[in-house]
């Protein structure tokens, strides 16, 4: 019976780590991506619209896994499968 609170506590920590690591990776990725885009646009301004389209494509790829992580983390928060069999 005391396992239930333990599993809940571990789930809370896991959700926090998922959100944090996802945010960290995404932030660094977007920073590098945006920086390169600005450099490229500054070097060749006539290519800026084309580069912007490609930047959005890569941006969605960069935060794909972070979003998947957020989806799972929210799932753990509201419908925790780890406490499914336990009683409290």
């Amino acid at each position, binding site marked *: 019976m005391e396992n239930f609170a333990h599993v809940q506590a571990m789930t809370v920590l896991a959700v926090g780590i998922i959100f944090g690591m996802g945010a960290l990776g995404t932030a660094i990725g977007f920073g590098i991506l945006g920086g390169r885009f600005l450099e490229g646009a500054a070097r060749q301004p006539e290519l800026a619209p084309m580069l912007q389209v490609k930047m959005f*494509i890569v*941006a969605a790829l960069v935060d794909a896994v972070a979003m*998947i992580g957020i*989806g799972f983390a929210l799932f753990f928060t509201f419908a925790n499968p780890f406490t499914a069999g336990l009683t409290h």
Partner: protein
Amino acid sequence: MAAEQPTTANEYILHHLTFLSNKEPKGILDFSVIHLDSVFFSVLLAVLFAGSFYLAARKATAGQPGKFQNFVELVVEFVDTQVKDSFHGTNKLLAPLALTIFCWVFLFNAMDILPVDLLPYIAHGAGIEHLKVVPSTDLNITFAMSLTVFILIIYYSIKVKGIGGFVSEFTMQPFVAKNPVLKVLLIFPNLILEIVPFLARPISLSLRLYGNLFAGEMIFLLLAALTLHGMSQLGSAGGWALLVAQILLAFAWAVFHLLVITLQAFIFMVLTIVYLAMAQEHH
């Protein structure tokens, strides 16, 4: 809301995360369960998209176009440019598929802009307990689309390269060898290195869309739960503060979400085009 008003934010959120199913699932994989609300809204939006574009095509004039025809031409030209940029062959299915994916996924995602309780409240008046109006927050819908694209990738790979070419694409790359014995030995590592990204494509395609829309819907729900107790909250100053905060935050999030909606539909379409183009290229 349900027969008893949800009293905690958790209940409210869980109520809004439940699908309208024909029966309860027995275990994690139960194919007899149908999410009636997802099916209804996806079919409705498909009819809306296909019907309106078909009407625009029928009434199309070569002279000065009307507003809707102009809009349809804009969308079709946009998708056509994207396909032409990535695919240099001839395939009659690809551009219409890309157009359908873009418009359909965009309409799915756009259902998230409607107020969270609007359609469920109307449905509750008609006796329906749960209603989820955004089909792309249903894993079944997103996986259905990405698995269809996956099947098309395999079909076009085999059609263009033949079974031998298709198999050699997995077993002879990325490690190439001239010696036949070495070729056989390298089949296993090649297979692992090729199968993993090959399977990751449909999974990431569907989960990307699902994750983005689920997170967006979750934030709308959390913001809606700020004024969970309705009119009785307006008695206190704290209640008013929550109402003002809710209006501002929900507006800001909705504006940001407009970008996410369009971007995710665009990404699904672009990745479909790129994957199908890669499946049909000869080496």
